[in-house]
């Protein structure tokens, strides 16, 4: 897009007041009340839509390199843009594992070439995510990694986690901890409880998550290193996080839309689209997730977007892989199940997808103000729509929310001043 573009008739995400902005050269050049943006070479009539800083997802699996059949940087970021995201942080459990600075550079380069949003690589904590030897964390940070994680392969050795937290300190980057005691998980495939007992499926106790959360909180105290607790699902984890914050420890935590929307009842009759790790938990855990969000104990939201092939999920329950896609339903699940019932204001909900995650990883700030990168999202918080997984931009169709009626939709996304997504129906509206 060349020349100055003006977006008029929007409403500011924090105040709800009429708002407009002008974009040029990848940045916002003017923003404010009607009249502030001035004239543009091209104009977009937002028709009363809410404009927010671009959403950020700190926890996605783009599957590239090695898993291109399931997702690529191109398709994953395309899905991200459709979900209103202007930046994602991608997990290193690819093939090969991102434990070498060359791969960090490769992802960054590939994202520039093919991406529809900014991509921030997360590098492995240990070589091959095997938990045995430290990766070159400093070189990885220098190459552009924004955090370290052995996501999917928890660092079982407390000693190794301690040393990683210490060694990473000069980088200032967090370690994203996938909290799961593998000995307690055993061969479990869903939450341990009445549903698993009825289905005859081996359970994963909530304690498998909580004991590791508590361990890593103690290690944060011991080392002073930043522990970021990934995809928290269990009531006890939020108690531990609350306690860690009270103690003033450098601990942050995230949760995902499926944990505040569903319980293990959603597994129903072996629905592999309700199988993820950590698993959907009991009703009391779901209530605890919502309570922790309301209280501000949860630092940010993430999707844990984990695309899998149709054939992989079309297997008997205990053979199907863990994980669901989330980028294209995240905001709507937030608005439908947190804002609509009154747990959060719209502004706070959006903050947990924008400013909050940027703070957690120390990413550059994005604001709706002159000088900021032009990364923003237009959304209609009241629009009702029906999820149609067959039309997802991600390669994954593995969602438990297909055909759900949700409230709130992303209409358009700008990243670096480029339009990276625009809803067809909205684009074709006569006003435009």
């Amino acid at each position, binding site marked *: 897009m060349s020349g100055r573009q003006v977006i008029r008739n929007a409403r500011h995400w924090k105040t709800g007041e009429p708002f407009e902005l002008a974009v040029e050269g990848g940045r916002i050049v003017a923003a404010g009340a009607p009249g502030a943006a001035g004239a543009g070479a091209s104009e977009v009539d937002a028709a009363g839509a809410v404009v927010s800083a671009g959403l950020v997802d700190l926890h996605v699996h783009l599957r590239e390199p090695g898993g291109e059949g399931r997702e690529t940087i191109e398709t994953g970021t395309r899905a991200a843009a459709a979900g209103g995201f202007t930046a994602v942080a991608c997990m290193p459990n690819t093939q090969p594992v991102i434990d070498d600075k060359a791969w960090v550079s490769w992802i960054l380069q590939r994202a520039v070439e093919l991406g529809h949003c900014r991509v921030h690589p997360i590098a492995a904590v240990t070589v091959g995510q095997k938990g045995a030897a430290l990766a070159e964390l400093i070189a990885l940070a220098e190459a552009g990694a924004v955090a370290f994680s052995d996501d999917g392969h928890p660092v079982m050795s407390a000693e190794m986690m301690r040393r990683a937290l210490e060694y990473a300190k000069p980088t200032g980057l967090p370690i994203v901890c996938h909290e799961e005691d593998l000995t307690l998980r055993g061969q479990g495939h869903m939450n*341990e*409880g*009445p*549903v*698993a*007992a*009825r*289905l*005859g*499926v*081996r*359970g994963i*106790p909530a304690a498998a998550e909580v004991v590791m959360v508590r361990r890593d909180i103690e290690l944060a105290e011991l080392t002073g290193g930043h522990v970021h607790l990934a995809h928290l699902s269990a009531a006890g984890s939020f108690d531990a996080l609350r306690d860690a914050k009270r103690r003033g420890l450098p601990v942050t935590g995230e949760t995902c839309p499926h944990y505040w*929307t*569903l*319980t293990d*009842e*959603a597994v*129903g*009759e*072996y*629905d*592999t*689209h*309700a*199988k993820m790790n950590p698993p959907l938990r009991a*009703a009391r855990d*779901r209530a605890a997730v919502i309570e922790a969000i309301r209280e501000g104990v949860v630092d940010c939201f993430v999707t844990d977007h984990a695309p899998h092939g*149709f*054939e992989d*999920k*079309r*297997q*008997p*329950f*205990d*053979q*199907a892989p863990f994980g669901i896609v989330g980028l294209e339903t995240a905001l709507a699940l937030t608005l*439908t*199940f947190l804002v609509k*019932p009154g747990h959060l204001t719209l502004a706070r909900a959006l903050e947990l997808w924008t400013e909050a995650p940027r703070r957690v990883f120390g990413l550059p700030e994005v604001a709706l103000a002159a000088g900021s990168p032009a990364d923003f999202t237009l959304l209609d918080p009241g629009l009702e729509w029906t999820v149609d997984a067959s039309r997802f931009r991600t390669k994954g169709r*593995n*969602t*438990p*929310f*297909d*055909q*759900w*009626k949700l409230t709130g939709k992303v209409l358009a996304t700008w990243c670096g001043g480029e339009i990276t997504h625009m809803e067809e129906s909205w684009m074709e509206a006569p006003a435009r």
Partner: protein
Amino acid sequence: MPASTMSAPAPTGAGVFSRMASSRHLLGLEGMSRAELLEILDRAQRFRDLLDGQGIQSQELRGVTVCNAFFENSTRTRVSFELAEQRLGATHVSFSSSDSSTAKGETLLDTLRVVQSMRVDLVVVRHPSAGVAAYLARHLDSAGVINAGDGAHEHPTQGLLDLLTLRQAWKGQFEGRRIAIVGDIAHSRVARSAIHGLRVLGTAVTVAGPPTLLPMGLEALGVECSGTVDDAMRGADAVMALRLQRERMEQGLLASTSEYARVWGINARRVELLEPEGVVMHPGPMNRGVEIAADVADGPRSVVFQQVTDGVAVRCAVLLRCATARAHEVRP
């Protein structure tokens, strides 16, 4: 209360099935009505009477093709199904995992689709994964699926044969009765099917066993958990001892078979705690001297071998029911 999930439609993913209304399948006893259970038991009882008399030499399943697909070892269930199929005049074939093409990398679903494409009407399937019977019923468009044991989930023909045995022992009266199920509930598909069937028919179920082998949340199935075998058996109208797999010791779930036998085994002293007419059941194969004492297995209260005979009668009834339903449902 997850009210918000109730306002949304149920998930409809690759692995889900809405409970199969079709009676060309027998996937489990969960969700079956009292009337359905009694209808099967009535039909099974007629076969049972024939087995005690002139034998079954029927052609009721003539023209029906059945494939017994066993992805897990089994002797008694497989032989029992094969005998039932043969006695009703069905064409039947069997294979086990050792000679199946899944060993060559073919998916389970493709293997069963191949079988279905050979115009097989009914598939009797045993598999180590819970939910496989429902999975196949969802993905096979014409064959009926009979669950012969799916992981730790259900073993409905075993559950039905247990009901048939108990109906005879209890003279048709399920209400007001109580059964104790003792042992490894966590890994037992036999227990789950029995629990569902008995609860629907009005029988109280008490379970007892090492806490490592009782799944958390078991009470949701409508059973009472007892701390000791003595308490569970006292005044019960039957006791069912479950088979103890040796691998439970390797998994660190139990200390030793001798301790198990002492604390949880069904012995002659404990049998005296039952009601005077109370019976002793075991789904087999028995570990004599572990979960059941040899003198109890062979004693006057034991109905263990009657259960096996009832199994053939029940499988005749189930095959007939599923074949009849399939003939009505599937248009060629």
